């Protein structure tokens, strides 16, 4: 690896307070291109031993790409990486990289068909070349117990839930004994207690002198865990500074390139609102006695016109299943769903769509995107009418339609024809949300719509959801993130498939979290009765 | 009449069922067995796979077959099985092909080299010793195809050096033959004749191609392409009657079946044969691993196409 030929002269790496020890990792002048996209442009990064270093930036800024370079998964076009003062291993020798750095990648790096135990110790089984299964399972059980994860180590990984899966990956990386650990959005798939456990663990390791590179779009997490932060913007490093002296506004300003203090309006100017069908009080979406055995109990739900309702629940609390039933992906065992008073055939996505339910799935990789196809095509996947007559889709109209959506949600792409797999994670998420909106739904059902989306885009996305409601339609946000739920007019907290409490605007976070975790003690802010089963939509 | 014969039963494997020739071989076998033939186990089908021949034979001997009739399309890879059968004193009649090695009681076949040679002579005479012919070969790994190709090539070189031969390998596939012949016709408009090593596979595709190209003149008119075929299936005789095919060599499916059973029964009865002419117009010759009864393979032309002795004419009536 050589310095970038003709690239910007490698600037001096930021002077750190003089330390005798060589840095845990030092990257200099990293350049990485993907076809026409310059993903990293002469980036420098130094992580000192024992330091918790945050890496932040907007979606597509190049964070994950830098991680790939630092972990030997991608070969930089130019630049140098050194671990502890020693040049990085040859590219293509993954085993050697493994000894230097452990990583929790943003996208799941597990083998679904293998057991939990094997995934934990993939390629570094204790003992000689022959496997001792019993010992392996024992160690796996012990290791996972340390994270409060109770799964059978002999279970196949594909049987695990998202959060358990994430902990398997975290446990694997942290137990490796590397002096440098990279975590690329490790908290995106964890709920609040999970995050607390993870942070506890990280602090312990840090006390032992392990260095971290931590990526998150949650600035409060950065503040809670890290001491130094590096900001990437448009493939360049723009800032490295101690976290302590940096206000959130300054950080966001660095990420977005706007002047600090000049915050753009939280909500985009309202669109030329379509004539809101002022309702006679019929909720746009109503579910009565909806139940799916093993997931959630009989439960009633209503979303009024112009209302945004939050459905809050921990990761495994059955809220995702509610959304999937509403979207027609699963058939409920009991109950009925109506949209604007008209019943919807259960268990059929096309009918749900026709009835006006737009759906943002939980996992964009699994259910959201067709990776090989273009942004335009992904955006218009569900659209039937306006792209051409008689079931045709005219490319010009599709592209035009896509351009509007791209502009509306501020999706960063080279154009409507770019394959969606070439987008950064947050931008892929925006495509999924845009797709759900493309059919002009009566009600939007969104599961963790801002998953992996940067601060500014998060505002924009939630703003769009708000707009949908303001236009006389409704929205149901299924999430456990307070930030998502803030925009809701009403939040219904669910614990183990049962409605536990309902909050109106102005709830306190602690109360909500408590309700989500089933701790019904504490007085909910301005709550309605905890056993409200029929919650009529009320216009705000 | 399974299991009724005190001297034992015959195990028979047919090599394939997807060609007219082998299909009528099988019909004749069945007919002969039904009309007071020797006791035989149900027929096995090895689907043109030498491994299956061996496993079928083993299954048949396991069921008590005391004599075996096979038609190994691969003459080398049957050696070990022949030796094994010889060790167990089970006589083998090989139909259509002559195993390279390993003892056989009797080989019943027409001489494939003679096919190639006689086809060559027929073409050579018709073309007057010069011109251009195409040869649609079979599968290059088939002994019968190879014998025909080698004999044809040797004969052409020796006797008709004025004739240019274009050899086209086809894997016994009609569409491949048609495609290659079409390419050749585009290149050489002056083609005078075609040698079809297997009428069953090539006849209809070649006729269809010539018809499409307007080259299908009746025999004896100017511009006619001389066509010589091997096999002697009913389609070929029909084409000869219609004047589109010049000649074919009739491979005697009926005689194959009849004499395969004849020799198998003789073997069960403990009879032995010696080289020399037989009572059915053929000759037994000595080969290194046994004896071979070389059955006559008549050349069929317009003159003798209605000869009732031709197996194709018999099967036509039988149906």
């Amino acid at each position, binding site marked *: 690896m050589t310095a970038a030929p003709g690239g910007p002269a490698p600037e001096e790496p930021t002077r750190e307070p003089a330390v005798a020890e060589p840095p845990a990792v030092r990257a200099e002048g990293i350049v990485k291109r993907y076809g026409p996209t310059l993903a990293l442009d002469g980036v420098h990064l130094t992580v000192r031993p024992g330091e918790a270093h945050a890496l932040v930036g907007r979606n597509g800024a190049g964070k994950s790409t830098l991680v790939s370079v630092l972990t030997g998964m991608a070969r930089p076009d130019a630049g140098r990486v050194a671990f502890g003062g020693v040049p990085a291993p040859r590219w293509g020798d993954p085993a050697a990289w493994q000894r230097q750095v452990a990583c929790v990648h943003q996208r799941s790096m597990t083998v679904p068909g293998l057991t939990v135990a094997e995934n934990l110790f993939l390629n570094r089984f204790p003992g000689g070349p022959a496997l001792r299964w019993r010992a392996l399972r024992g160690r796996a059980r012990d290791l996972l117990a340390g994270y409060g994860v109770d799964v059978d180590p002999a279970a196949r990984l594909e049987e695990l839930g998202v959060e358990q899966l994430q902990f398997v990956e975290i446990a694997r990386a942290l137990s490796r004994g590397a002096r440098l650990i990279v975590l690329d959005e490790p908290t995106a798939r964890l709920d609040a207690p999970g995050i607390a456990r993870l942070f506890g663990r990280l602090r312990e390791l840090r006390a032992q002198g392990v260095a971290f590179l931590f990526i998150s779009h949650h600035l409060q997490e950065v503040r809670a865990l890290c001491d130094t932060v590096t900001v990437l913007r448009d493939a360049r490093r723009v800032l490295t500074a101690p976290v302590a002296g940096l206000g959130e506004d300054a950080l966001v300003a660095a990420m977005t390139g706007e002047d600090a203090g000049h915050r753009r309006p939280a909500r985009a100017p309202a669109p030329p609102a379509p004539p809101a069908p002022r309702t006679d009080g019929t909720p746009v979406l109503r579910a009565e006695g909806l139940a799916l055995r093993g997931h959630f109990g009989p439960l009633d739900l209503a979303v009024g016109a112009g209302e945004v309702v939050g459905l809050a629940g921990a990761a495994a609390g059955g809220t995702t299943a509610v959304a999937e039933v509403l979207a027609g*992906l699963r058939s409920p065992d009991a109950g009925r769903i109506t949209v604007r008073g008209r019943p919807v055939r259960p268990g059929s996505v096309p009918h749900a769509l026709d009835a006006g339910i737009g759906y943002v799935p939980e996992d964009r990789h699994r259910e959201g995107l067709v990776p090989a196809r273009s942004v335009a095509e992904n955006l218009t996947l569900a659209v039937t009418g306006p792209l051409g007559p008689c079931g045709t889709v005219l490319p010009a109209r599709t592209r035009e339609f896509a351009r509007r959506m791209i502009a509306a949600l501020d999706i960063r792409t080279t154009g409507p024809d770019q394959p969606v797999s070439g987008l950064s994670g947050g931008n892929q998420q925006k495509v999924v949300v845009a797709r759900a909106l493309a059919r002009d739904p009566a009600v939007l059902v969104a599961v963790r719509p801002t998953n992996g989306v940067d601060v500014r885009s998060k505002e924009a996305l939630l703003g769009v959801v708000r707009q949908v409601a303001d236009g006389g339609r409704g929205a149901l946000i299924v999430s456990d993130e307070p930030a998502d739920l803030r925009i809701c007019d009403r939040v219904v907290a669910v614990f183990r498939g049962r409605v536990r409490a309902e909050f109106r605007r102005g709830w306190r976070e602690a109360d909500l979290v408590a309700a989500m975790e089933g701790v019904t003690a504490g007085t909910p802010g301005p709550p309605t009765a905890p056993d409200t089963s029929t919650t009529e939509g009320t216009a705000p | 009449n399974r299991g009724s014969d005190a001297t034992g039963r015959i195990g028979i494997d047919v090599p394939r069922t997807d060609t007219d020739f082998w299909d009528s071989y099988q019909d004749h076998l069945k007919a002969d067995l039904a009309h007071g033939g020797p006791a035989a186990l149900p027929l096995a089908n090895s689907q043109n796979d030498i491994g299956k021949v061996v496993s079928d034979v083993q299954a048949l001997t396991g069921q008590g077959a005391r004599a075996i009739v096979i038609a190994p399309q691969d003459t080398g890879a049957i050696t070990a099985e022949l030796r094994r059968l010889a060790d167990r004193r089970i006589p083998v009649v090989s139909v259509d092909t002559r195993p390279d090695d390993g003892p056989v009681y009797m080989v019943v076949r027409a001489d494939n080299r003679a096919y190639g040679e006689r086809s060559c002579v027929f073409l050579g005479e018709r073309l007057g010793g010069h011109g251009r012919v195409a040869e649609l070969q079979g599968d290059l790994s088939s002994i019968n195809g190879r014998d025909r190709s080698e004999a044809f090539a040797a004969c052409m070189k020796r006797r008709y050096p004025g004739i240019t031969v274009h050899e086209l390998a086809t894997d016994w*596939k009609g569409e491949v033959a048609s495609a290659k012949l079409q390419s050749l016709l585009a290149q050489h408009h002056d083609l005078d004749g075609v040698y079809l090593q297997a009428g069953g596979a090539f006849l209809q595709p070649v006729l269809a191609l010539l018809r499409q190209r307007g080259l299908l003149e009746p025999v004896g008119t100017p511009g006619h392409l001389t066509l010589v075929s091997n096999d002697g299936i009913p389609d070929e005789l029909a084409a000869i009657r219609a004047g589109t095919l010049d000649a074919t060599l009739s491979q005697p499916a009926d005689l194959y079946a009849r004499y395969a059973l004849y020799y198998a029964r003789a073997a069960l009865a403990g009879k032995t044969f010696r080289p020399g002419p037989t009572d059915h117009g053929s000759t037994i010759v000595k080969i290194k691993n046994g004896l071979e009864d070389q059955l006559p393979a008549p050349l069929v032309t317009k003159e003798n196409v209605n000869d009732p002795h031709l197996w194709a004419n018999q099967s036509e009536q039988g149906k």
Partner: protein
Amino acid sequence: MTETTAPPAADAPPAGPVRRPRIAPGRWRDFSLVPVILLLGVVGFIVSPAFLSGDNLIGVVQQSTELGLLVLGEALVLISGRMDLSLESTIGLAPVVALWLVLPAHGGRFAGLGLLPSWTAVPLCLAVGAAIGAANGFLMLRLRVNGFIATLGMLTMLRGLHLGLSEGRSLADVPDSFAYLGRTSWLGVPAAVWICLALFALGGAALGYLRHGRALYAIGGNPEAARAAGIRTDRITWTVLVLAGVLAAFAGVLYTGHYGAVSASQGSGWIFQVFAAAVIGGISLKGGRGTLFGALTGVLTLQLVINVMTLGGVPPLWTQFLNGAIILLALVVSRFTSGEQQE
């Protein structure tokens, strides 16, 4: 107009990472065989001037038609993320069943049932193809067995049925209505060529411009996402399988007319060719990728290779070797001209 989400016009997005404008890279893939075909053309011309004669080129295209229709069907199936091996048997079985139902019980060499008038032969044949496709769909989509092996089993079984019905004979006395399309010419070019090109064009247009056509890519690319987007994946996959069966049966009609008979080994061994053509033409075996234009160039490439070798007078013993070598070469060339890794 259904303006759902007006652009937040005011704040322009910050300039993204530097991007040079370029032709979409995916596009190249569909043309990656064009250089190979040109190369073959040059070699063909050097080998024999007859290569460029209309006769020869039309011949090549005509020989490609039956294979081409199978490839068309298989391409649709592959794009939607499935495989159908049984097409190789359908091309033979469908005509046999149709003729069996149509041909008189007495008179011909092949004893049919004579149940239906002979003009029904072509529709019957297509119906048989559709039925086979539906059976494949039943196995894959209802019983959820592995499609590769299910259609491999079907391949064997249908070929067996073909043999059983035809008793191993080839059927030469085909009704005129059945043979017509395969042997007639329109405007000096075989009708089969026109039909085949029209079907490819139609299919290409459907894939590019129809909602249901585009859905195939979504289903093949990520079936769960397709389902979540409201695409009726099972129904569409089933339709595609039926369509592939019908196309294979139609290829059988053309074949029968072209070669003058239904042979007992009609189509036998073709499926490898079909896959080879589709894949070197840029269709992914994993679904969701490729175009019919690419598939067509794949077919032409394979057929040109054989043509050039015949014209060049390659010794028969070495044709197969050379054939394999050229396929490998074409593969490598197309990989580098498309600039993409193949999976």
